[in-house]
């Protein structure tokens, strides 16, 4: 059963990626930019779910890793060609996550949440101080890349991420991650190198967030610490993953697509009230769909099928 659905999923995924790759050839610029944003959030949401989904450690450091990628791109962007900028951003994030993970992943529950949330603000204020007092700037300029180039870069990052997630999930490391989420001590007794595995997977998830950050930096062109380290980026993947459903791979992808489109729609229709409406939607989504879209469809389906049985 599992195998069958994943085979269908793979075929569907390949078709979607090929269709996506053709988009810049005929679609208007606006669509390309919108799709780039969607791909960006998909990358962040899927990489967040890669670690936090199976282990149950809720990380709010996504903005820190994303921002690390952005800032690295801003620093090396003038000197290096685009692919190397992306790699540099990814590696910078990877290193930050390795360090942070090694330090903090023995914290449990709410302490881990607080720590990761604090990390975003720590990096923001440290870099702000550094820029103002030591390098004497407040913002940096990243050499811009064309819309289509940024789109293809994001698409490549996303596809590599999907492949990575797919193989990690199917390998024994995926099972080991799940066992950590179920019961860490039992996993450790069963021979899982709990700490090493957590840290490595955490860093891998950060790697992709950093790459996405570096890619987006070339689109935004002007960067300052407040733009780079936006706490919203920490919460969005959590919301998207919960909304779409954490378990299946397509859950955070669907969640990211819907929320990014929603954000874009609200931003163009209600530029002054969009954050307000967004907040209301967030609260309502959590209130009425705590198990996400998939939980909701299951519940509706159950109701319908129950009614059918009741009728007969």
């Amino acid at each position: 059963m599992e195998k069958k659905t994943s085979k269908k999923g793979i075929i569907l995924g390949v078709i979607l990626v090929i269709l996506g790759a053709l988009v810049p050839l005929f679609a208007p610029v606006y669509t390309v930019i919108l799709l780039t944003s969607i791909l960006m959030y998909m990358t962040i949401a899927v990489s967040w779910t890669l670690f936090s989904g199976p282990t149950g450690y809720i990380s709010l450091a996504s903005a820190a890793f994303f921002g690390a990628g952005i800032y690295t791109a801003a620093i090396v962007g003038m000197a290096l060609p685009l692919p190397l900028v992306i790699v540099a951003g990814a590696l910078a994030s990877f290193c930050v996550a390795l360090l942070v993970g090694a330090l903090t992943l023995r914290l449990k529950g709410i302490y881990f949440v607080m720590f990761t949330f604090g990390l975003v603000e720590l990096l923001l204020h440290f870099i702000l101080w550094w820029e103002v007092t030591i390098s004497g700037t407040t913002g940096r300029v990243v050499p811009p890349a064309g819309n289509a180039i940024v789109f293809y870069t994001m698409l490549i990052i996303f596809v590599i991420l999907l492949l990575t997630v797919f193989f990690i999930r199917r390998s024994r490391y995926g099972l080991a991650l799940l066992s950590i989420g179920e019961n860490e001590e039992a996993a450790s007794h069963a021979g899982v190198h709990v700490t090493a595995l957590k840290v490595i997977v955490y860093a891998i998830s950060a790697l992709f967030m950093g790459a996405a950050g570096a890619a987006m930096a070339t689109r935004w062109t002007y960067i300052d610490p407040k733009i780079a380290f936006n706490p919203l980026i920490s919460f969005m993947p959590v919301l998207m993953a919960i909304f779409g459903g954490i378990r299946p791979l397509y859950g955070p992808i669907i969640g990211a697509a819907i929320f990014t489109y929603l954000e874009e729609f609200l931003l163009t229709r209600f530029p002054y009230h969009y954050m307000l409406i967004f907040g209301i939607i967030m609260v309502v989504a959590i209130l009425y769909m705590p198990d996400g879209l998939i939980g909701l469809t299951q519940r509706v389906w159950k109701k319908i099928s129950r009614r059918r049985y009741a009728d007969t």
Partner: protein
Amino acid sequence: MIITILDVVISGLLLGGIYAVTAVGLSLQYGVARVLNIAHGEFIMLGAFITFSLYTKVGINPLISFAICGPVVFAVGFVLYRTLFTRLRTSSPTAGAFEGNSMLACFGLLFIIQNVAILIWGADIKGYSYLAFPVDFWGARFAANRLVTLGFALAICLVFYLFLANTRLGKAIRAAAQDPETAGLMGVRINQVLALCFGFGALMAGLGGALISMSYKIEPTMGLEYTMIALIVIVLGGLGSILGSFVGGLVLGLVGSIVTHIEPGLSLVAYYVIFMLLLLIKPTGILGK
């Protein structure tokens, strides 16, 4: 030299008093009502702006407007818990799920409150001058409003502590903090008590905001920073410990004042470094078991 030390210590206590009030509020909300209120700072901001409006538009003395902005913010918190969080609590399968869901709901609230405030007051930085004359303190000079702020902060914490220690409701709150299920079985009306706790948490945030508005500039987006500081303080003092939050607030204020004296831009960074070191070395806090 001695004057400098006195200067740093007293400004640290002034800052610490405000931190203590807001952190005691967050400690109630997290320690008892189990809501990690990321929107705590927004209640602080609300208190600050209500006081600001009452003073600049109506001319009500900020110290008297405590009696207005306190109950308003309390009511907002109480109603929010009775509607939103009670529903989330009953629908979440586990305590962990409730913590996660309520935190996300708070993040939504953060946007709602912040943007409503921007609609009402605009996005600019605001401030007013109240009791701004200097007072000599063994050679160190302070604005009178900051001393009044410290006095009120200490008084608010003391009153609240006495309330928790000596009244029936205080006892119910302490019981709910230890074990909500058992407290419910012992006849504590648990939903009511948790909602009151959340309301009291909001009240402390509102009063903290009113105090902040007397000595500092305010803006609608100021909340997150104060939320983070309050979070750091309650970890510093040990999660759920009211006394710990109070002591932690004063300690953090002192640290902030010392760091500001050495390198002004780094006080927030220093808070986070302390926070992270503490989480790594002693996550139960300085007064924790």
